[in-house]
């Protein structure tokens, strides 16, 4: 018998329908686990004080009309850069300490309309600047698999919450790797939809041209359900795609991968990558072949070039997006921005300055176009490309300190796909040193069905999704 925090969305909804347990039961279950583990893990920054009231209303609704909504009574953890009415939203920065938003992000509106209950807001790298959750002004989140390790980031709190069983599912956001990398390091599933697939309205902007919200869940199927809910044109986001949202849950129910063409990217098996990590990726490729897919070795531009392109574009946009935190409003002075954030603002201001713009920003845009072209060519022949999400497993606490390029080095394998606005799943594919490793399955823009379908089939036919033994780690 599974414990309540181990259930998938479908299993929870079945439980409600069969009256095995109520939403209040489930929320209480999570609250007691949060009470027990949060202090140590530092996953939640703020908790929803109304969660039980909302749960009891949902129970009443279900008692009356049965389960009618796709996320009815599903307890969510939400990254702290999603604006939530009534819940303090800080993006883990002291400059927004105590900030209560006047409106909900579109994605929040959509999950709430679909019946979700928000348990609380999760820790992240300050303003999403990092891949460790160590740049948070409210202390790092610890990896549930090993408290001496980082959870990754910037959505480290959301990934750790799912991994530790402190929510059923979570929302994260990714600019380049911020959903996929912490999901990989925490041994859960993370899905980054294509740029523009889900609305960015109400998510505190990091780099506007690549930001994208995405689910972090245990099961690929849950990611598919959530993506279906949050996707679609938003009149408040001019960059959101008008193309109709596919029925991802239907699309992923496949028993094998016959006819699916997959490219194993040679360059993603980095020269300095540990052999045991490389072998997990090669094993995953074999597994996909066994499931019926053709897997060919393919070649892309060396991912190291993406680091330069991404760094310039992202820092430039950051320097602009954070200009509104000028110390006049929101109650705190600019001194309360953390070192990493200041560094990014400085670099971005420099790359956009007269005389440097052409050499940096414009050059970066040109290479970005080249990367996009290369992917376009690739996806003429392949449904997805695969590789590791991160060069290795979770790094020790403190690894990001004094390493201004830490995030970029750790995200080297996911920056190309982010720059090109592709969709990509990170799914557990094994362990090294007792720490989880993630496989990325990346598909073309607006082909989320393909990535999710392959990841779901892989997950159902492997046994890499596990719970860390918190009693042992804590």
């Amino acid at each position: 018998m599974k414990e309540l925090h181990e259930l998938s969305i479908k299993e929870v909804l079945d439980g409600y329908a069969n009256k095995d347990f109520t939403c209040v039961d489930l929320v209480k279950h999570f609250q007691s686990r949060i009470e027990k583990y949060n202090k140590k893990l530092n996953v939640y920054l703020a908790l929803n004080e109304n969660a039980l009231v909302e749960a009891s209303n949902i129970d009443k609704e279900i008692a009356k009309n049965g389960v009618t909504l796709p996320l009815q009574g599903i307890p969510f953890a939400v990254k702290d850069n999603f604006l939530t009415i009534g819940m303090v939203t800080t993006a883990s920065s002291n400059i927004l300490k105590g900030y209560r938003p006047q409106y909900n992000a579109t994605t929040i509106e959509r999950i709430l309309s679909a019946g979700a209950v928000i348990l609380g807001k999760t820790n992240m790298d300050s303003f999403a600047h990092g891949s460790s959750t160590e740049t948070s002004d409210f202390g790092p989140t610890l990896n549930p698999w090993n408290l001496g390790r980082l959870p990754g980031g910037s959505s480290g709190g959301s990934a750790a919450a799912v991994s530790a069983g402190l929510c059923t599912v979570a929302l994260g956001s990714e600019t380049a790797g911020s959903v996929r990398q912490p999901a990989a390091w925490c041994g859960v599933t993370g899905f980054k939809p294509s740029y523009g697939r889900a609305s960015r309205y109400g998510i505190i902007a990091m780099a506007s041209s690549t930001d994208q919200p995405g689910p972090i869940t245990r099961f690929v199927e849950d990611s598919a359900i959530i993506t279906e809910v949050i996707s679609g044109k938003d009149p408040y986001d001019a960059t959101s795609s008008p193309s109709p949202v596919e029925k991802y849950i239907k699309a992923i129910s496949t028993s094998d991968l016959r006819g699916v063409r997959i490219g194993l990217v040679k360059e993603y098996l980095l020269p300095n990558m540990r052999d045991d990590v490389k072998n997990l990726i090669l094993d995953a490729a074999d597994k996909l072949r066994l499931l019926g897919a053709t897997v060919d070795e393919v070649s892309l531009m060396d991912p190291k070039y993406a680091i330069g392109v991404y760094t310039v574009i992202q820092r430039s946009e950051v320097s602009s997006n954070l200009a509104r935190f000028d110390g006049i409003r929101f109650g705190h002075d600019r001194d309360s921005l953390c070192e990493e954030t200041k560094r990014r603002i400085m670099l971005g201001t420099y790359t956009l300055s007269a005389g440097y713009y052409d050499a940096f920003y414009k050059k970066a845009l040109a290479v970005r176009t080249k990367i996009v072209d290369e992917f376009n060519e690739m996806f003429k022949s392949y449904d997805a490309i695969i590789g590791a999400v991160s060069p290795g497993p979770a790094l020790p606490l403190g690894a990001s300190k004094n390493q201004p390029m830490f995030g970029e080095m750790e995200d080297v394998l996911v920056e190309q796909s982010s720059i090109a606005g592709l969709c990509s799943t990170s799914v557990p594919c094994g362990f090294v040193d007792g720490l989880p490793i993630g496989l990325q399955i990346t598909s073309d823009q607006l082909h989320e069905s393909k990535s999710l379908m392959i990841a779901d089939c892989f997950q159902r036919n492997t046994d890499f999704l596990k719970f860390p033994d918190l009693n042992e780690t804590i």
Partner: protein
Amino acid sequence: MKITPLIGLEVHVELETKSKMFCGCPANHFGKEPNTQTCPVCLGLPGALPVPNEKAIESCLKIGLALNCRVNILSKFDRKQYFYPDLAKGYQISQYDQPFCSDGFVILDSGKRIGIERVHMEEDTGKLQHVVLDGKKVSLVDYNRSGVPLVEIVSRPDMSSSIEAKEYLKKIHEIVKAIGVSSADMEKGQMRLEPTINVKIENSININVSDSTKISDTPTISVYTPLAEVKNINSFNFAQQAIDFEIARQTEEFEKSGIEKSATNKTTRGYDSIKKITFLQRTKEEAKDYRYFPEPDIPPFIIENELIEKLRGELPLLPDQLISDLIGRGIDVKYAKIIVGNEEALSILNNYKDDSDIEPNKLASLLANKKIDTKGDIKGEYQKATKVGNTNIEELKSVVEKIISSNPNVVAEFKKGKTGVAGFFVGQAMKETKGQADPKTLNKIVIELLNS
């Protein structure tokens, strides 16, 4: 020494769209309670995103088309970054290198063509209010104006006098009003003017030449004074005054210092309308680096030819076209020019276009001179004003004869050659007939009888 001013103008026009440029808040902010027309987008709150107002873009395109511009197929917004407390996001969404419209012109009455470099779209800022609150001097920000759509019209430096600049501005003002995108009320700040001025100074060179050689043209050497941009002027007259002040100042300054225009010595100046002087605000060294880059929150635009043609079709007759149209209908140029600037007079004139009882030029004259009550029955008013008087020659003759016989002295003067006194008899006869006499007929009779 020959002096030629070179004047270019930047004109900002606030559009009167229903909603703001990037959100749904009302764009009409004039006289509204501070901060009552705001939302997350125009307040620049975290997470808020701009969504462009298509109507505003169409208005911008219409202005461009009316100014004979090319509409660019590819266009985009950019972020212009600077810090100011009334700038909610820390950047203004504007257009940098791909404006909606380029390369237009306006033709002055003299036939001179003033080039227009570009017509682009941007958003307005909030407004600072410096007030005393509870005995303390404070600065408050009102965001009602934040995000109101602005169109910027940038001319080439083709004007060479303040009079030309004023005529150009008036034409822009009339055109913008005529297409109905803004009332361009200067007092409400709906149209703001920024002239950039410098002066070309030509001096002849004295060369000693031998008697045998003759040079047909005296060689001259020309120099240019440093550019000065005068910011935020809100009246045509102030613009004219500021330009004249600058021409004089720059010429004088040059004579003293000899400093010529360079890539780094452009200055920004303000205009003090009370002292009627411009004053230095910033030098180029202090100029801001706006760090423009493409606005990532708004996808680039592809303007379809279909839309351009549709908008062109929606343009009304523009003032210059209207004037020639009116002239074609037999109306005097002087009346036509007055009437194009007066919507009511124009519509009255158009309403009676095909009425055979009404002579267009007469009605135009009455309207231009405000001789008839436009709120009343126009046709009645017209007939009253142009009423043909008593033309009964016998009746009038007897009246005139009476006056002549009782004023022999005046008649004598006439006979001496003082023909002007004829007017006296006409006036007297008019008085006698209580103004009912037809002046033409009366005049004829008076002359006839005096000469007989």
